[in-house]
């Protein structure tokens, strides 16, 4: 089973959830990132996502390993879509199962924040009056030194 995937076709949420079902889990959280129509009052027509695919898969897997080390007993699956996405289309599904519920929320949130830091995927927003590659969505300069921090370097 592939727990970490870049997909060209629509993501089936249930199939991502199914990957993390375990008898030891009492809680599964999912995060489903969808394409929103309005951002800062500007109307998006559609998005195009692009990935450096082999590295993106590795970095998603790295996030999974980080989570499974930090929250023992957890299991993680992530699928991110690339290509053209319309409003309400699903860009990413993160599923995390854990024995107890607090961990399932925290670990899942950790996953989406890490995706926005270290996974080489970019989106281009298309509006009525133009288009642009979106930079750093964390709205901070993630790498002011021009290089990733120690913790972001792969194994």
């Amino acid at each position, binding site marked *: 089973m592939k727990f970490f995937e870049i997909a060209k076709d629509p993501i089936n949420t249930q199939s991502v959830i199914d990957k993390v079902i375990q008898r030891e889990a009492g809680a599964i959280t999912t995060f489903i*990132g969808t394409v929103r129509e309005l951002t800062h009052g500007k109307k998006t027509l559609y998005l195009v*996502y*692009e*990935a*450096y695919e*082999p*590295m*993106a898969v*590795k970095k998603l897997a790295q996030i999974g390993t980080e989570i499974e080390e930090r929250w023992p007993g957890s299991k993680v699956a992530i699928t*991110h879509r690339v290509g053209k996405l319309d409003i309400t289309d699903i*860009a*990413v599904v993160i599923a995390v199962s854990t024995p107890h519920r607090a961990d399932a929320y925290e670990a899942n949130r950790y996953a*989406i924040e890490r*995706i*926005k*830091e*270290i*996974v*080489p*995927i*970019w*989106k*281009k927003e298309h509006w009525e009056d133009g288009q642009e*590659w*979106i*930079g*750093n*969505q964390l709205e901070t*300069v*993630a*790498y002011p030194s*021009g*290089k*990733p921090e120690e913790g*972001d*370097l*792969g194994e």
Partner: protein
Amino acid sequence: MNKVLFFAHLRDSAGVESVEFAASGKTVADLKELISEQFGLQNFDTVMTAINEEFATDDEVIQEGDTIAFIPPVSGG
């Protein structure tokens, strides 16, 4: 030789997806400077670099055959 990959706005600016470049023995910082001059690329100070699909620091030395990718600030999720 080395394969150098461009993504997102860098690819649009460079006008190519990848180039072959003799980068062996150079540091990442050296390569960044050469590439940004040759392709007229701006804002390279927020661009990360990956060697063989792992993030690399500016002082890392590139080996023959390494694949180099320039990674603009990511926006997945």
